[in-house]
C-alpha cells in the first residue's frame, strides 16, 4: 500500500539447523500418519453426519447429478470400447481352440466382476476427485470455507457429506450401466469379427454370471465411490499455498484416489471371493 511506511521488523533470522536423514524420515513418517489420521476423521465424520441434522438434500441432489449424470458419457464410451476390445483379445485366443462361443462367458465375468467396477471407479476418480478437490480448494483459498464457518455452517455437513453420499449412491449405478454397455460393445465386436450369433452371445454371457459375481461387482463401487469422494474432499479442504496449491491438490487427488481404488480392489476381491464361497 502506498500509504504504509516501509516495514522494518527487527526479527532475527533463525540459525540454519542441521537435520539428519533419520530425523527427516521420522518427520516424513509422522507427517504421513497425521495426514492419515485427519483423513480418517474427515471420512468417518462425513458418514456420521448422516445420523443427525441439518442435512442438505439440495446439495446431495446437485452432487448426484454432477457425479452420476455428469460422468455418464465417459463411463459409457469407455465401457463400450473396453467390452469390444475384450472380445477382440480373447476371441483371437479362443479361435485357436475353436471355442469362440466362450467369448460371451469371459467378457461377462471379467466385466461384471472386475473391469466394470474398477474402470468406472478410476474414470470417475479422474473426473470427480479432481473436480471436487479443485472446487473445495478454491473455496478454501478464497476464504469461502471460512465464510461458511463464520455463518455457522459446518463445512463437513454442507460440502463433504453430500459429495460422499453422492459418490456412494451413484457409482454402483454407473457401474451397472458400464457393465451393460460393455457387454453390448462385446456383442457388436463378436458379431462382426467372430461371426457369433448375438442371441448366443447374450445367453452365454448371462448364464455365466452367478449371483455372487453380481454382488461382487456391485459391492466394489460402493467403496470406490466413498474413496474417490473423500479423497477429493480431503485434498481440497487441506489446500495450502494459493492457486498453485489448488493445482497440486487436484493432481494429488486423482493420483491418490486411483491408486487407492486399485489397492482396495485387491482386498475387496479377496473378501468377495471368500464371501461368495460362504454365502451365495
Amino acid at each position, binding site marked *: *500500500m502506498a*500509504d*504504509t*511506511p516501509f*516495514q522494518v*521488523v527487527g*526479527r532475527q533470522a533463525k540459525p540454519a539447523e542441521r537435520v539428519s536423514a533419520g530425523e527427516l524420515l521420522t518427520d516424513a513418517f509422522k507427517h504421513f500418519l497425521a495426514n492419515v489420521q485427519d483423513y480418517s476423521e474427515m471420512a468417518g465424520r462425513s458418514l456420521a453426519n448422516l445420523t443427525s441434522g*441439518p442435512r442438505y438434500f439440495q446439495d446431495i441432489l446437485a452432487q448426484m447429478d454432477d457425479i452420476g449424470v455428469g460422468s455418464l458419457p465417459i463411463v459409457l464410451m469407455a465401457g463400450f470400447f473396453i467390452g469390444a476390445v475384450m472380445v477382440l483379445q480373447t476371441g483371437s485366443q479362443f479361435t485357436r481352440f475353436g471355442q469362440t462361443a466362450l467369448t460371451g462367458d469371459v467378457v461377462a465375468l471379467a466385466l461384471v466382476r472386475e473391469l466394470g467396477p474398477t474402470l468406472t471407479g478410476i474414470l470417475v476418480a479422474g473426473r470427480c476427485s479432481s473436480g471436487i478437490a479443485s472446487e473445495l480448494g478454491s473455496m478454501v483459498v*478464497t*476464504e*469461502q470455507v*471460512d*465464510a*461458511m*464457518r*463464520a*455463518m*455457522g*455452517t*459446518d463445512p463437513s455437513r454442507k460440502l463433504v457429506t453430500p459429495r460422499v453420499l453422492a459418490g456412494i449412491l451413484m457409482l454402483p449405478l454407473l457401474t451397472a450401466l458400464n457393465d451393460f454397455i460393455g457387454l453390448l460393445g462385446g456383442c457388436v465386436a463378436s458379431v462382426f469379427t467372430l461371426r457369433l450369433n448375438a442371441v448366443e452371445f447374450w445367453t452365454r454371457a448371462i448364464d455365466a454370471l452367478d449371483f455372487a459375481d453380481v454382488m461382487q461387482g456391485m459391492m466394489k463401487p460402493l467403496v470406490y465411490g466413498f474413496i474417490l469422494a473423500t479423497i477429493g474432499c480431503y485434498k481440497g479442504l487441506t489446500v495450502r499455498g494459493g492457486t498453485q496449491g489448488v493445482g497440486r491438490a487436484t493432481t494429488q487427488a486423482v493420483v491418490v484416489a486411483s491408486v487407492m481404488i486399485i489397492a482396495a480392489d485387491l482386498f475387496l476381491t479377496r473378501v468377495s471371493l471368500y464371501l461368495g464361497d460362504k454365502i451365495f
Partner: protein
Amino acid sequence: MTPSPPEPQASAVVTFENVRIGFDEEDVLRGVSLEVMPRETLVLLGETGTGKTLTLKLAAGLLRPTQGKIEVLGQEVSAMSERELLPYRRQVGFVFQEGALFDSLSVGENVAYQLREDRLDEEEIEQRVQEALRFVELEHTGDMLPSELSGGMRRRVSIARALAARPPIVLYDSPTAGLDPVTAQTIITLILRLRDVFGVTAMLATHRSQDGFALANFRFDPESNRVVRLTEKEGFVTAGGNAEPVTRFVVYREGRVYFEGGPEELAESKDAYLQRFLV
C-alpha cells in the same frame, strides 16, 4: 441489527486475556489482552503479519488460541467445542478481506445464505435480503453473480451478508484493503451507518489509520441521512462520558499490544513506530 439500548453497560462484549496463537512453533500473537465495550469500535492497527486477522478469527471462533481466554457476549469462546461454536458464530458478523462471497451463488443468495441456514420463511428472507442490499445501495444486483461486480461492490455485498442476520457484533477484516480512496470512503461510510443506525459493536482490522480516524471523527446522522463531523470544533472526541460512539485504537507490534488508547493519544504520540501509521 438489534437496536441495543445505549445504556452504559459495565461488562465488555469482547474480552481477550493473555491470548497466544502461533503456527509452526512460532507465536504470532504473544499474549494479547484487550476489551471491547458495547457499541464501541475497536480499530486494530499493525503491519502485515502482526496478527490483526488472527485476532478477528479468534474472536469469531474460527481459530482456537494455544493459550489464554477469549470471551464474547458472555460466552467463553476459547473453551467451546466446534459443535457449540456453530450457533455462537451466527451472532457474529464477519466481513472478510476479499469479501469471500460464494462465487457460485447469486448476490441475493449470498446475502440470504445465513437466513436460509436459520430456516426463516422465504417471505421474511426476501424482505431482509432486500433491506440489507438497500442498506449497501445495491438492491438491483440481487440476481447477479459476484464475478459480475466490481471489487468495491463485492465488499459492499459482503457487508450486506454480514448484517442480514442482524448480529450485535461485526468484525471487519481490512475492509478497505486494495480499494481506491473513493470506494474505501464508501465502505467506511457504510461501517459508520451500521454503527450509528443499528448500534453494532465492531472490531476493525486495518493498516490505514485514516479509516480509524474517520470512524472516530464522524458519525452518521439518520435524520439528515448524511455523515457529519462529531463536534463543531476540529479535533477528536474524547471517549469519556458522552453518548457518542466511541472509537479506540489498538496497535500491534510483533504480536503484542504496543499501544492502546483513543484517537487523540494516537495522533499526538511522538513514538516513532506509531508515527508510521499516521500519514
